[in-house]
Structures are given as structure tokens and as C-alpha cells.
């Protein structure tokens, strides 16, 4: 029998925002459905309603023509609706097996047998007895999927599942999902990534600002048409003009840079050597966890290294801290916007003052020069298109895209010679990604340099002049970006080599 999931006229209103407005959709097993939309389009709200985490103000859900009342996640589980959230619902310090047995009524032995047979069937390999915090993101996701599969679900909902996965893990996930679908599980796939929708799904529903915009078959759609539906405007496709000749004017030179960590969860950096010229964008590709975050920290001065190992603008600065490096006109945009780049509980204008320069006069005699900072913050907000006019807003209330624009703006407004950024568009929607990309291209054109550490290969190919690949803390040779392809990068990122 086919599984049929129908939602009719779902409405959910939060103070000041309509998250879902009269959403009606019908799903049937045997197909993979995409729910597409930008961040904040209301996808997650809808998914939370389907999984019982929140309750709708209006509307009904039917599973196989029976009304479903989902008052809690347990109700969803009981009704065979499995859910894998974007932020995993795992207990990091408990073992994999403990994570799985906690909501199971089976005996230890039976459950273990069941888990092992599921892992064999879908070719998962996870050590059941190590703490979850030792797993990679992809493995954690598999634990979540196993948790759903144990219950033999009729419906499996995946919320932004690839945002933390490497390319290889994504491929594995897709083949698993197709296998589940063939076995009769109804799959609803929530994403804002267009390519994934095109390669994985059969039908797609697009949401925008809480409303359903369209429902269509994938065969009738193209990436451009979906993108337009998603953002509601025609996207400019930006293309970077590559550097025709490499300028010989070296800006930064890294020589024999090493970093040895005492933490077994960090990657050691070995013999890093590279140079970046003025106006060049060096992309550093790699699967996450291969030393990117350590490299970023060493370059930004969060980790101090040998004085001679970093030469910037003819100064040796390896032993300087981030503050001192900023004085030499370096700028940094770390990966984690809320944890590393900004202080979430502080107001926008206060955050703006955090990378204070000696020259900026934000502080006088130990006091904060508030009017000056506010003026500066307003300039950043308007120059960098941050969608708010309230600089008193706590920065945690900015969307990811706006926060990233604010951070990039804060870093760039001082007109640095070199910007080092780490996954600058991670988790952002198309509009914000485009804006960030345009900004990065613009500063390259002003003869400023960029080191772009990113796990998004498309982004790297689009923005970089030169590309290196980091693998297990070692950096590959610099290659010209127009000579490499994503296939070649894939080989290097997996630790392989080609002529």
C-alpha cells in the first residue's frame, strides 16, 4: 500500500511574522519530494509542525487519510514519521548505542542485532560503542537516520541534510535516500540548494516568505527557474574575470609553517608554504576537518607561530596576535559567525567596534566613543546592504546572511590589504551568497588579496585565481583556477594525486 501524507491549510503565525500561510501539500510514497526555499521562507516551521515539535495555529495533517494530531515529537514517532533535523538531536557524550537505545523499548541484544542489520543493508559503518562526539558530521547524520529506520518509518523528513556533509558524504546520502524511496518510504527533502533538488528529487514545492509559491515536477524545471521562484527576482549570474597575468608583487609569504596540536581532535599542519600576490584570490579547498580551521587560526593569529613563518608586506608577523596583525592591514572573517566573529548578545554597533583599530578612535581614555561607533556602524550597514536600520539590535537576531554581511563589512571598511575568510557563505541563502561573492570579487578588483578557505567547491572555482587543496594538514601545490575542475579537486581532497 502506498503511503499518502496530506497537509491542508496549515497556518502558523509568530508575533510579527507569518511563518506558514495556508500551506497545502500532498505527498505519496515512491517519490522524493523537495521543499525548497531560502532561509526564513518557512520550511523549517513546516517541518517542525510535521514532526510535532510545534503545533500549527490552523490546518490539518492526514496520514493515509486519517487525521493526525501531532502534539509532540513522540506522536510523530508513533505515527511512523521519522525526522532528521539540520541540527542533530544527539547526545554527544553518550555512545552511539546509548543514543539509539534511549527511545527504544527493545532489549539491548535485539536492538544491537537490528542496528547491525540496518548498517549492513545500507552499507553504513559506525562504531556503536564510541561517544558520538568522536564521529564526523556525516556519521552523526547516519546515526540519526538509523534511529529513524529502527522504527520502520513510512515517512522520512530530512531537514537541510547536506549543510554539514562533504561531497563524498552527500553522494552516499543521496544513494541511501534513493534506496529508501525504492523501498516505499516517502521522503521529504528540505533544502535551499538547487543542484541537490535537481539531482535527487522527483517533485519540488517552492516556498517564499511563508507561502507556497509553486509545486512542479523536476523534469519541468531548470536551476534558473527554480532559483527565480525561490528568491522572487532574476538572479544576476556573476562571473569573475580571472587574473590574466600574475602580479609579481608578493603580499604574504608563508614559509615552513607548522602547527602541532595536543588536542587529538585537531589536525596538525605540516610544512605549509605558499604566497599570495596583490589582487589575487587564493582558494583553499578541502573536506572539512583537514586542517582548515587550524590554518585559519594560524593565519589570523589566534594561534601564534614562528615569527619568520609568516611574512606580510615585508614584515615578519608570525608571532603577532590578531589585533596586531590587523594593524598591518589584515582582516579576518572566521567560520562561525555567532561564536567566533561576533558576540551574539551584544548590539550591532558594539560588535562593529570589536575589531577596533588604534587609528579608529573608538575608545578614548578608556571610555567608549559611542556616537563615533554608531556612525561607523551605520556606514557599514548601508555600504554592505545589511537589512536592518536598527544598530541597537542584538546581533543574534540578525539572520545568517545579514550577520555575515555585517562581519565582512566590519572587516572591509578599514580597507585591508588581505582578507582571510573561512566558509563565508556557509548556510546562507542564494541572495546573501551572491552579495558576498560580488563583494569578494570587488575587493580583488581593487588590487586587494583574499585567502578563501572554503569547503564549497563551486564557490572556490567561481572566486579563486589560484587553488590549493588541504588534506590532512598538508597543502597541495598552487594551481591555476581555470585549469582545475571539480573532479581534479575531488581527487586531491580525497588524498589522491594526478600527474
Amino acid at each position: 500500500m502506498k503511503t499518502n501524507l496530506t497537509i491542508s491549510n496549515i497556518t502558523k503565525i509568530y508575533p510579527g511574522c507569518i511563518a506558514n500561510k495556508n500551506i497545502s501539500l500532498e505527498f505519496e510514497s515512491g517519490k522524493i519530494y523537495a521543499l525548497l526555499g531560502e532561509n526564513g521562507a518557512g520550511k523549517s516551521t513546516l517541518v517542525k509542525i510535521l514532526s510535532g515539535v510545534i503545533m500549527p495555529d490552523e490546518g490539518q495533517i492526514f496520514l493515509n487519510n486519517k487525521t493526525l494530531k501531532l502534539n509532540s515529537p513522540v506522536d510523530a514517532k508513533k505515527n511512523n514519521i521519522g525526522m532528521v533535523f539540520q541540527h542533530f538531536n544527539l547526545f554527544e557524550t553518550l555512545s552511539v548505542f546509548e543514543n539509539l537505545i534511549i527511545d527504544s523499548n527493545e532489549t539491548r541484544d535485539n536492538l544491537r542485532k537490528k542496528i547491525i542489520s540496518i548498517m549492513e543493508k545500507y552499507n553504513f559503518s559506525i562504531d556503536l560503542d564510541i561517544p558520538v562526539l568522536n564521529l564526523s558530521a556525516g556519521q552523526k547524520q547516519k546515526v540519526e537516520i538509523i534511529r529513524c529506520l529502527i522504527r520502520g518509518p513510512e515517512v522520512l523528513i530530512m531537514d537541510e541534510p547536506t549543510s554539514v556533509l562533504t561531497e563524498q558524504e552527500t553522494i552516499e546520502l543521496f544513494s541511501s535516500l534513493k534506496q529508501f524511496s525504492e523501498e516505499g518510504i516517502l521522503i521529504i527533502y528540505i533544502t535551499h540548494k538547487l543542484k541537490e533538488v535537481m539531482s535527487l528529487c522527483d517533485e519540488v514545492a517552492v516556498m517564499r516568505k511563508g507561502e507556497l509559491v509553486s509545486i512542479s515536477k523536476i523534469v519541468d524545471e531548470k536551476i534558473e527557474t527554480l532559483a527565480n521562484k525561490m528568491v522572487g527576482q532574476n538572479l544576476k549570474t556573476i562571473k569573475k574575470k580571472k587574473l590574466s597575468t600574475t602580479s609579481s608583487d608578493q603580499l604574504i609569504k608563508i614559509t615552513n609553517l607548522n602547527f602541532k596540536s595536543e588536542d587529538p581532535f585537531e589536525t596538525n599542519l605540516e610544512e605549509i608554504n605558499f604566497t599570495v600576490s596583490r589582487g589575487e584570490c587564493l582558494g583553499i579547498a578541502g573536506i572539512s576537518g583537514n586542517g582548515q580551521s587550524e590554518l585559519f587560526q594560524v593565519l589570523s593569529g589566534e594561534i601564534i607561530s614562528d615569527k619568520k613563518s609568516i611574512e606580510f608586506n615585508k614584515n615578519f608577523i608570525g608571532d603577532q596576535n590578531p589585533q596586531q596583525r590587523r594593524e598591518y592591514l589584515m582582516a579576518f572573517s572566521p567560520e562561525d559567525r555567532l561564536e567566533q566573529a561576533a558576540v551574539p548578545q551584544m548590539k550591532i554597533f558594539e560588535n562593529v567596534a570589536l575589531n577596533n583599530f588604534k587609528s579608529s578612535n573608538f575608545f578614548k581614555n578608556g571610555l567608549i566613543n559611542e556616537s563615533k561607533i554608531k556612525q561607523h556602524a551605520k556606514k557599514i550597514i548601508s555600504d554592505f546592504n545589511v537589512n536592518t536600520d536598527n544598530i541597537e539590535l542584538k546581533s543574534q537576531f540578525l539572520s545568517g546572511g545579514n550577520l555575515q554581511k555585517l562581519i565582512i563589512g566590519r572587516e572591509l571598511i578599514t580597507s585591508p590589504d588581505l582578507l582571510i575568510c573561512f566558509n563565508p557563505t556557509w548556510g546562507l541563502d542564494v541572495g546573501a551568497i551572491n552579495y558576498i561573492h560580488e563583494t569578494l570579487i570587488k575587493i580583488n578588483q581593487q588590487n586587494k588579496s583574499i585567502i578563501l578557505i572554503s569547503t564549497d567547491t563551486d564557490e572556490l572555482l567561481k572566486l579563486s585565481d589560484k587553488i590549493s587543496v588541504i588534506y590532512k594538514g598538508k597543502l597541495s601545490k598552487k594551481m591555476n583556477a581555470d585549469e582545475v575542475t571539480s573532479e581534479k579537486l575531488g581527487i586531491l581532497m580525497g588524498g589522491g594525486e594526478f600527474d
Partner: protein
Amino acid sequence: MTIDINFVGLIIASIMASSVPLILASCGELITERSGVLNLGVEGMMIIGAISGFALMTVTGNLFIAVIGAMLAGVLISTIFAFLTQTLITNHVATGLALTIFGIGISAMIGKNFVGIPGKEFPVLFGNLKDAIPFLSPILFGHSVVFYFAFALPFVTNYFLKKTKIGLIVRAVGDSPDSASNQGINVRLVRYLCILYGGAMCGLAGAYLSMIYTPQWIENMTGGRGWIALALVVFSTWNPIKILIGAMIFGGLTIVQFHMQAIGVRIPVQFLTALPYIVTIIVLVVISRDSRKIRLSTPSSLGKSFYKDN
């Protein structure tokens, strides 16, 4: 100088006896903290247990009622803490400190009528075997039932946390209340129960002090043992077995102090009183070098309030 092994046995037994309240209170607090709740009111709950136990014993004359009553008093006062922190979502630290101050104050008030009243003798188990085996007998035999309970408790607690489903749920709630809630676990209920259990154990620890260890009521008689118990939980990195070891060390310090003075070694009392805290700080410094170990052993949500949004 010849060493009398019976004398050594007696010293060890007295060290064990002095570590009993620490073990009880720490094991209770450990369960509370494993569920993610930081209750700094241990000292307050202990002193309430102490006065309740002593008062009930004096009034009813029944030791059993007195011990159970002391535990219930601990439960009662911890209910206030649970209601404030879990239902009204107040700050754990501030509420716990208030609880201690409240406990000390109210125990002094109730205790006024009980100062100077002699306690009752608490029955001991295996009293007839007291001299049967040299060295071992004073350690093993002739103690109260609470004593044996205390030394079994760390092992029971360890088994409970590691091997039982409910123990797993407690750890899960302490690790990530949000995930637990999404798994259909009633986080608030689990935390309530863990807080009340902690209260019961602190009450028992207090009753041991006023009814068994020094059978009388003296104002403020817990004398900072609640704080040592709290330090002990951290010292043990939330591991019940290590609580046993730590309690013996900390409890032993006071005993050693007496004997040191007897043989003429002079160490300032203040230093010995401060020693448990100094040791805790040193242990913290040592273990915090290994960030992974800290993450694995510390309840991730410790001290953080849990809200359920709708």
C-alpha cells in the same frame, strides 16, 4: 616506635566515618548535576536534614522516623529549589546560594530549642564482631546502617548511571535537554526528580551528622561539609567511584589533623580546612589540560536553564 595495627584500623575507621556525610551528599548532588542542574544549596539542605533528624528524634524518640523525616525535609527544601529553577526558570547559581542561606537560617531558628539536649545512641550493626579480627574489625564492623549504605552508594550510583535505562535518560538530559525533549523525554520531570533525590541524600547526610557522628545539635554544625561535597563532585569529574576516593581523602584530612597534633606536627587548622578546595583546584587544572576528557565527563548543560518553546 611500634605501630599498633589495631590503632591504624581505628584511624581508618574514623576517617571512613567522617567521610560518610560527604559521600552521601556528593552522590546525591552528582545525580542532580548529571541531569544538568547545578544546586549550590547542598550545605543548606544538609543543615536542614541535620536539625530535622535531631528534632524528630528528640520529639518522637523513634530513630527510623527521624532518619526518614530528615530525608523528607531535604526533599521538601529541594522542592523549593526545583520549583524555582525548573518551573519559574530562575538562575541555578543564585537560587542554590539562596537555599543555603535559607537553610542555615531556618535550622538555627528551629534548633534553638534543641541546643544542649543529648542525642540518642544509634544502633550499630555487627557490634559483636568488633574485636574478632585485628585491624579489619574496626573498619568492617560496628557501624550504623547509614555508614554501610553510604559505602554502597557510589557503586549503586555508578551502576544506575551506566547500566539502567533511567540512568541513561538522566545522562541524556544533562547532555542535551533539547535533544532529550525532542526524543519525548520529559526534561522538567527528570530534573525535578533528580533535584529531589539530591535533596533526600543531603538530608540523610545531615541526619548522619546530628544523630550518629556527633549526636547533638550545634548551630551551623555542617561546618562547610556541603561545600566540600560540591567540590567533591567536580573533583570526581562526575564519577561516583572517584567520589568515594575523594571523600576518604577529604574526610581523612580532619582526622589526620588530630593525630598530627597528637604526635607534635603542627599544621595550621586553616590550611587543613582549605586543603579540599586547594586539591579540587589542582585536580581541575590537571584534568582541564585534556579538553576532550572534560567534554566527555562534564554534563554539557550543567547550570543552564531549559526552556521549551512553542
